[in-house]
């Protein structure tokens, strides 16, 4: 499949899209304001990958790792450009957690998403890969080009940061606790 992808075989790219779109979408979703932005960045990821297909080394990096790397850069560019545009409402929503909801019916998803944005990029990445995309420590290590020990350490620190962020939003314990 990777060889056909390098040759820009459209059937092969159809298979790649079907196999990896959800993972790419999930990976970028936490860092963006909403579904529209996530869909846009996810779609762009495949467009960039297709455009650069001849540069892909299919003997070295798994396709998913390559796509995740592209997605990470696209999100990074998106946020940078948003920063350059100034403190628009969209930017504020993208990179900072919202004001805590004082109502008793807190939308858990929004709080988790907001807490995610308080983490570092590496912390977001490891949580996305491990617990959103259900990748093993071994696979996550390959995707992030880290050692397995480094991933274990990073995931703990990421969860601890998540716990603190949630606590700051009036949770006594992280998550559903």
């Amino acid at each position, binding site marked *: 499949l990777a060889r056909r992808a390098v040759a820009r075989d459209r059937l092969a*790219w159809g298979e790649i899209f079907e196999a990896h*779109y*959800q993972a790419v979408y999930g990976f970028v979703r936490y860092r963006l304001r909403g579904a529209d932005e996530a869909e846009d960045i*996810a779609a762009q990821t495949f*467009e960039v990958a297709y*455009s650069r297909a001849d540069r892909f080394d299919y003997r070295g990096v798994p396709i998913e790792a390559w796509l995740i790397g592209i997605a990470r850069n696209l999100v990074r560019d998106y946020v940078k450009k948003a920063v350059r545009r100034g403190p628009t409402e969209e930017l504020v929503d993208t990179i900072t957690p919202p004001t805590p909801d004082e109502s008793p019916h807190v939308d*858990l*998803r929004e709080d988790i998403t907001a807490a995610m944005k308080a983490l570092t990029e590496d912390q977001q990445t490891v949580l996305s890969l491990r617990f959103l995309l259900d990748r093993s420590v071994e696979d996550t290590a390959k995707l992030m080009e880290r050692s397995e020990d480094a991933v274990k350490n990073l995931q703990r620190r990421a969860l601890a940061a*998540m716990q603190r962020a949630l606590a700051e939003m009036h949770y006594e314990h992280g998550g559903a*606790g």
Partner: protein
Amino acid sequence: MSDRIDDLLDQALVTGVIPEEATAEERAELEGLLAAMRGVKETGLAIRAEAQETMPSARARFERFTAAQQQARHLQRPASGGRGRWFSRFPGGRGLSFAGVAAAAAAIVVGALILPGSFGGVESASAQVLTEGSYVQVEGVVTNRTTADGQVSLVVQSDLGEIAVDLADGTSVLDDQGAIRPGDVQSGRQVVVSGVVGKAHRVQAQTVTLGQEAPPPPVPPRVEQLKDLPQRLEGEVRTISLSPDGKRARIHIVTAAGGHFWAVVEAPGVQALLERSANALGTMVRLVHPPGTPPGVFIVEPVVPEADGPSAPVAPTPTPETTRPPAGPSPSLTPSGAGSGGETARPGLVTVRGIVLSRDGALVTVETDRRVVTVRVTQRTVILVGPDGVTLDARSGDRAIGHAVSVTGLLNEQTQQLLADVIVLGPKPVTGD
């Protein structure tokens, strides 16, 4: 210490149980971490559902992109030295540069009776050709780019004058390196824009294909409206515009002698050009005015070159029947390997003609002479209604069932669905007694 708690957490994540060897202090820390993890996982379920919902439109966009990429590679060949400032588009001996074609076309131009219209100026030609709601393909040079509230807009200097082009998130922007962001478009690049005309003649771009750097025309040419001609007029297509009701089209051509003309033409001829290629610009065409055609309205047909000679054959004056989209592929219009029976095969692009059998949401089934084809309609599909009694509301409802239809788009070989780019609805076929 951190190594130990890292390992304990990893064990807990694998087994779902906090290891017994954890101390009370470690257990408390792990419980907090696992609670945070559960929050992430719960959110992940919602994100998966969201991804599933967005997948069809993202897939459609990607399929459109890959097809446009193929088209872009064709467009981005270096311009030949002897040709105009735009793209070189005449491979295989179809070029205007051939002396025979030039001489023949120039003679025709001399013989043509051109009546300057009351809107003969450059600006008004733009307004006349780029009518609101029309699907257009136009080319030029980017002279300015602005961004306001995240909206990227371009000013494109075309032969019709300055054209405002708005780029949306769904717009595919391509250069010779592939996809780029709308905000990265630089002034001074050649560009081909396809999209739908909005308010104030602004083009809402679907695809923007960038070519080489080029200077804008120092003096925009005068573009005359063609109102009458005694014979035929040949030239290269520079702009097309298809009205939303599918009844009329407008076309802007440049002749070998350098004359610029725009004309109102019968829509089926332009639709046929689109069916030949996703990008109709650069095609050599002739305009004719056969008996029975309303005054000031012309019929456009492609000039098909001879296989081994530069001169374009002069076809007989078409009869009204030949001005309709052909029921099947014409040998002169169809690349080798084309299908038959109402389906025209092209690399990456397929045109299907048949009858609408049913519609289920975005999926329309069309019965051709040979098989039943599933057509996927997206938000960016351009839907045109034919001239014979189809009303606009048929575009969105079940009233389209039973109507003739021509669909040009991309075939998803995996799903075997045709992703519609342009749909032309025709009348219900008349059945025999």
